[in-house]
């Protein structure tokens, strides 16, 4: 009976783990919905900013905002890595960190001094293990990054950039494309890229939106306060903040999706394992009964 008992014990353990992974899956699903809602709500802002920029578009500024200034080669770069605080999220952290390390090495190869800042405990531990010096750790961005928290970072980065202490800001994070697809990417946020792949579709959207809204959305003669250029110059830092905030939101949504998928897989595996163990147990029990029967029959024959 010893073998059968051992199998039962294992099966119990597997069932318990399944309960945990299943619960985690449900929690991740709920969090994902919330994070997704937040991301959708936040979109209105970026869309409006883009719209306003396109309304201002006719009056292109004579001088580009200093945040656009490209400095080649970048002597001091800053790499911000967005990871999660918790594990059990499949390849989520691994992918981001792999992309981050690649960028880190590329930047170093180009001869830049790279400072690394990281958000999330997973990234901190990994970089500690790789013995990469980290200049700042942020652990307070959970699954609900607040704008005023991100704004603090954005303000600091802009100041560092304008003071010339950094020449480039890269962010490694997981970009949310749709619920089925997210990818780890490294994006350069400062200097603000003029041919931004994200900004291009947005501009197109902004152009499409007025068309969809009908003739009422023709170019209006705006009154500018203080003036078009002044507003445009103010708009640049705001759109940078919005962009950084979007990185955080994307990372939060992607984390929950990754965890959801990982936990779903774990639950399925546990199910399968539990089934196999049940089969093994039944077989063990059966063979034991057969053995017992053979013993009894053998004893009965011997008595005759």
């Amino acid at each position: 009976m010893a073998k059968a008992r051992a199998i039962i014990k294992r099966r119990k353990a597997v069932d318990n783990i399944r309960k945990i992974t299943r619960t985690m899956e449900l929690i991740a699903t709920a969090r994902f919905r919330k994070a997704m809602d937040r991301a959708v709500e936040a979109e209105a802002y970026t869309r409006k900013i883009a719209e306003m920029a396109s309304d201002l578009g006719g009056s292109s500024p004579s001088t580009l905002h200093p945040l656009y200034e490209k400095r080649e080669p970048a002597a001091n770069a800053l790499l911000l890595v967005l990871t999660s605080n918790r594990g059990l999220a499949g390849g989520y952290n691994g992918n981001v960190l792999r992309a981050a390390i690649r960028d880190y090495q590329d930047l170093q190869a180009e001869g830049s001094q790279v400072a690394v800042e990281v958000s999330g405990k997973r990234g901190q531990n990994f970089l500690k293990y790789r013995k990469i010096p980290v200049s700042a750790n942020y652990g307070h961005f959970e699954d609900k990054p607040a704008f005023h928290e991100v704004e603090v970072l954005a303000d600091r980065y802009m100041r560092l950039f304008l003071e010339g202490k950094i020449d480039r800001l890269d962010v490694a994070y997981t970009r949310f494309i749709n619920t089925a697809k997210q990818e780890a990417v490294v994006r350069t946020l400062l200097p603000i890229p003029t041919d931004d792949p994200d900004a291009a579709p947005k501009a197109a959207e902004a152009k499409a939106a007025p068309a969809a809204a009908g003739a009422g959305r023709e170019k209006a003669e705006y009154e500018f306060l203080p003036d078009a250029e002044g507003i445009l110059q103010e708009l640049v830092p705001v759109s940078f903040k919005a962009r950084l905030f979007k990185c955080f939101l994307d990372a939060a949504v992607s984390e929950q999706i990754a965890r959801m998928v990982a936990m779903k897989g774990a639950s399925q595996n546990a199910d399968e394992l539990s089934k196999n163990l049940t089969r093994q147990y039944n077989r063990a029990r059966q063979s034991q009964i057969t053995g017992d029967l053979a013993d009894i029959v053998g004893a009965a024959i011997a008595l005759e």
Partner: protein
Amino acid sequence: MADAIPAAEHGATTPAGSKLLQCQVVTPEKTAFAKTVDFVALPLFDGELGVLPGRAPLLGRLGYGELRIKVGGATESYFVDGGFAQVRDDVVTVLTSRAIPADKIEMNGSAAKLDEALKVKAVTESEVEEKEKAVARLRAMTHVSRKA
């Protein structure tokens, strides 16, 4: 936005007397509110600007201060933290990093914060600018919450 535009077009066709404004306040986190209102007072960077239905299109930079809206006879007041305002087709869009209803502003120790901000030594140009910003912000916040 989707429902705002038809309303605006509708507003544009009715006779001048009965027009209403569509006012939406958008923060990076969410759309704080979207309402149909009679009047909006915007805190622009150099002073207050009132918007009534039929206002010519406008793009403006906001300062720190009070955003007031009038619906029927009631007035609602919000504190906005800089940003931009756009007026067109009787739609007022306010983009700001924060919009707090006046009665929800937490004033715990902000008087002390104001004193602190006033005491900060500012030497360089950017420091002076930063200080002025902080002081203006706190002053506006205190002002709005006192009125509420």
